[in-house]
């Protein structure tokens, strides 16, 4: 790694550097002598995702600085607002804001033991949850973290006390009847009007806790206007408060966010003296910045070139993980032709998912496999294969043709004719402009459909949300994020008339099962109901899940406790433990 010399020497080197660059004479050394085993710090992560690359605190340097690339500027500091609900902003504040539950690298959630002693469901009718906050948990100005903070967040998020608060979601909070504090505010009792299976989702790391005592300085928390004013204030101002291992030292817009240890932090002291998030908005520039040691950790979306470039950098380890984002083809059921289940089943059957994976993400990893559930990732609790038994996604042309002929279709002159003798009109499959992997996948879909005599045109859209909403598609390729808290999402995505059910799927059995699942007090029962609904959906051939999208992390070998976390918490989920290996 690069060392620092005297100013004069560096000045001389600068001049020489300029001269060298001007003469466009690049020494072809390429760096890296290949001696010693490098790039192995993530070797254990497949077997042991939650603990790989760990080092006990006494083997870490005291101090040190780590810079991580952040792909978006932070425009809004209130992560609970629709505008602040951005993955990158969430990563930047992970070490600052407290929350009840965290998402771990194994894609499962656990209670945040730094903040809470316990969180338990003490009653099922009405559903009641009791959180016990640690006595020593305080904000960086010394004010205890208390029920007041929970109440402030709930009031802004429930859609009733502050209808004007531009929140990212009201899910769950809108079903809470009361949030009450006792034991000096260190016990929080939450009572629900109607059971909410995903109760762990409230105040979890994606919807963290903000300090009520600071909110109070910016608005009367008993009025809608006051709540809104506090809510907006949190969005517009860089946090000076913290109840995490780090606090913000400095933010320079479009440039960087600097964190330093929070001296009021009650947990294990962080080892690093400084963590810098450097804003690099173009992922293609991250490998060179990493190679030049301007950043030490990157977490970009993987592309073949980028992954290969990073793998060639000496003293850097990288790891491809499987995340919660999953790609899928959706039909638009408003299309008259696609209202026929047999045609949908046949089209999904003729798509060869393994070939699609091999031709796209399979080029840089062999971990990705066809995904067989619309609701859970294989690593998550509740995953069941509901797709294989339908034969969809296998690329079996004969099976697909049989489905069609059984239903009265004919293929004449390479053109599919429906049972009424009408040829099937051309259709369009759409994907997001500039996403090469989706473009390739869409083209594979079109080729597959051709084998059944269906012409599918591939066309991009630069406005995914708008196209989905307006229904200007027959087949859409896009992705959902499978939350560790799946029940409310399932209702949003698959039940009749819901906002995210863009293709207008409707099946009364699915509606009933998913609505029941979202209002359970027993998680296992709920998981069972979601899978039962998923089996019906698979048979209905509305959505074909393709694969879990890979994620990619790279870091210098001397960094300990940095590891992949493909959930929405990101690799910074344990930022307080990061450190530089001694020696």
């Amino acid at each position, binding site marked *: 790694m690069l*060392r*620092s*010399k005297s*100013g004069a020497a*560096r000045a001389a*080197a*600068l001049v*020489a*550097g*300029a001269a*060298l*660059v*001007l003469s*466009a*004479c*690049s*020494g072809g*050394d390429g*760096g890296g002598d290949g001696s010693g085993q490098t790039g192995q710090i993530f070797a254990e992560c497949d077997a042991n995702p939650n603990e790989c690359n760990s080092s006990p605190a006494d083997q870490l340097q005291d101090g040190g600085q780590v810079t991580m690339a952040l792909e978006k*500027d932070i425009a*809004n500091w209130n992560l609970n607002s*629709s*505008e602040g*609900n951005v993955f990158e902003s969430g990563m930047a504040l992970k070490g600052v804001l407290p929350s009840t539950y965290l998402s771990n690298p194994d894609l499962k959630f656990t209670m945040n033991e730094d903040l809470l002693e316990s969180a338990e469901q003490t009653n099922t009718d009405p559903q009641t949850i009791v959180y016990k906050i640690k006595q020593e948990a305080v904000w960086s100005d010394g004010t205890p973290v208390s029920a007041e903070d929970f109440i402030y967040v709930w009031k802004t998020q429930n859609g009733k006390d502050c*209808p004007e608060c*531009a*929140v*990212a*979601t*009201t899910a769950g909070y809108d079903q809470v009847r009361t949030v009450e504090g006792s034991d000096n505010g260190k016990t929080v009792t939450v009572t629900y009007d109607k059971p909410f299976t995903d109760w762990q989702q409230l105040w979890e790391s994606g919807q963290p806790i903000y300090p009520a005592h600071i909110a109070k300085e910016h608005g009367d928390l008993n009025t809608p206007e006051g709540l809104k004013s506090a809510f*907006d204030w949190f*969005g*517009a101002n860089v946090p000076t408060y913290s109840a995490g291992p780090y606090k913000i030292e400095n933010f*320079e817009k*479009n*440039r*960087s966010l*600097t964190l330093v240890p929070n001296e009021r932090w009650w947990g294990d002291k962080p080892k690093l003296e400084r963590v*810098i998030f*450097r804003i*690099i*908005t*173009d992922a293609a*520039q991250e490998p060179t910045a990493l190679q*030049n*040691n*301007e950043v030490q950790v990157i977490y970009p979306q993987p592309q073949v070139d980028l992954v290969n470039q990073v793998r060639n950098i000496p003293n850097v380890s990288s790891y491809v993980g499987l995340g919660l984002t999953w790609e899928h083809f959706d039909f638009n059921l408003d299309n008259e032709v696609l209202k026929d289940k047999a045609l949908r089943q046949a089209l999904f059957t003729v798509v060869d998912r393994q070939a699609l994976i091999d031709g796209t993400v399979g080029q840089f990893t062999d971990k990705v496999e066809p995904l067989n559930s619309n609701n859970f990732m294989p690593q998550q609790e509740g995953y069941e294969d509901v797709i294989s038994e339908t034969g969809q996604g296998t690329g079996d042309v004969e099976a697909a043709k049989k489905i069609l002929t059984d239903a009265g279709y004919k293929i004449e002159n390479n053109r599919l004719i429906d049972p009424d003798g009408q040829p099937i009109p051309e259709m369009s499959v759409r994907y997001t402009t500039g996403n090469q992997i989706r473009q390739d996948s869409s083209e594979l879909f079109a080729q597959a459909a051709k084998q059944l005599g269906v012409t599918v045109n591939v066309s991009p859209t*630069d*406005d*995914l*949300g*708008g196209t989905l*909403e307006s229904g200007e598609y027959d087949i859409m390729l*896009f992705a959902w994020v499978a939350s560790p808290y799946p029940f*409310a*999402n399932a209702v*949003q*995505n698959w039940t009749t008339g819901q*906002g*995210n059910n863009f293709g207008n799927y409707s099946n009364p059995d699915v509606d009933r099962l998913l609505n029941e699942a979202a209002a359970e007090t027993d998680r296992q029962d709920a998981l069972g109901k979601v899978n039962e609904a998923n089996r019906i959906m698979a048979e209905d051939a509305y959505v074909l899940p393709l694969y879990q999208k890979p994620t990619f992390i790279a870091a210098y070998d001397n960094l300990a406790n940095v590891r992949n976390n493909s959930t929405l918490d990101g690799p910074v989920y344990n930022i307080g433990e990061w450190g530089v290996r001694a020696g």
Partner: protein
Amino acid sequence: MLAYSLRRLLISVPIFIASTFVVFLMAVLSGNPLNKFLAISPPPPPQTIEAERIRLHLDQPIFERYWNWLTGLFRGDFGPSTESTLDIGTEVINRYGVTLRLVFLAMLLALILAIVAGVVSAVKQYSGVDYTLTFVGFLFLAMPTFWFAILLKEAGINFNNAVGEQVLYTIGDSSVYVAGGAWDKVLDIAGHMILPTVSLALLSFAAWSRFQRAAMLEVLGSDYVRLARAKGLRRGQVMRKHALRTALIPLTTVTALDLGSIISGAVVTEKVFQWQGAGTFLLDAISRDDVYAIMAWLVISATVIIVLNLVADLLYGVLDPRIRYA
């Protein structure tokens, strides 16, 4: 000259209104900023989306929106951004500051190189030096900016490895945290400036050196230069005082006129080297469907270009006494 300048500026007003209206129309029609909320699971509640619609004036008819925007400009109000915390006016001016810092340094470097190369090429016409410089000029002219910038980064990293020091940087305009004193900070900034400046400069240099060569050749072939030599003036003196000075006139005009295109050309350099300047501001605004931010960029750019065109015209008259404006 004052009357001429005023007349020129007045002509710019209808051009400004027409161009801003067309761009406003295109920006508004090209996408809906609220659509970003649609593909989120779970979606934000309807009242959030409705409040945002009103905040961004999406509930008003397009002509009204344009008129409000135009009149707002005179009060220094650039309109609401899709990022509610962003003050468009301050932001676009800061971003332009970043871009201009990059652009002016690059232009300075390009000018010096272009003049030297152009003069040497002309004086040593059809020599090995001339052919080499001509070849290099065309090579840079043909080179795509982004590719060249990436090559430069690689060269920079190789150089760092060769000297075993962090001398050159590939990201941003300075390090976030620099240990040491003022001198270290200067070196740090210099280390960040070199690659992007060179990358941007060499492309302008390529075109300008060709201009300079042609202008110099024309002057060298002229009667008055031959006369000066015939009168016994030394070669160096003729070159400097008589030939070069005259031959700088075309380059001055070209440089002033090129500034606009260099600023827009800097988009690529800014992106590759992650300078958060005006170019990336525009790209981000477009990707967010942030109409008022796009318009702010346009207004500032249009103003810069209108003023620079005027300056170029005026300079032409100042440098060449044969041309005067009535």
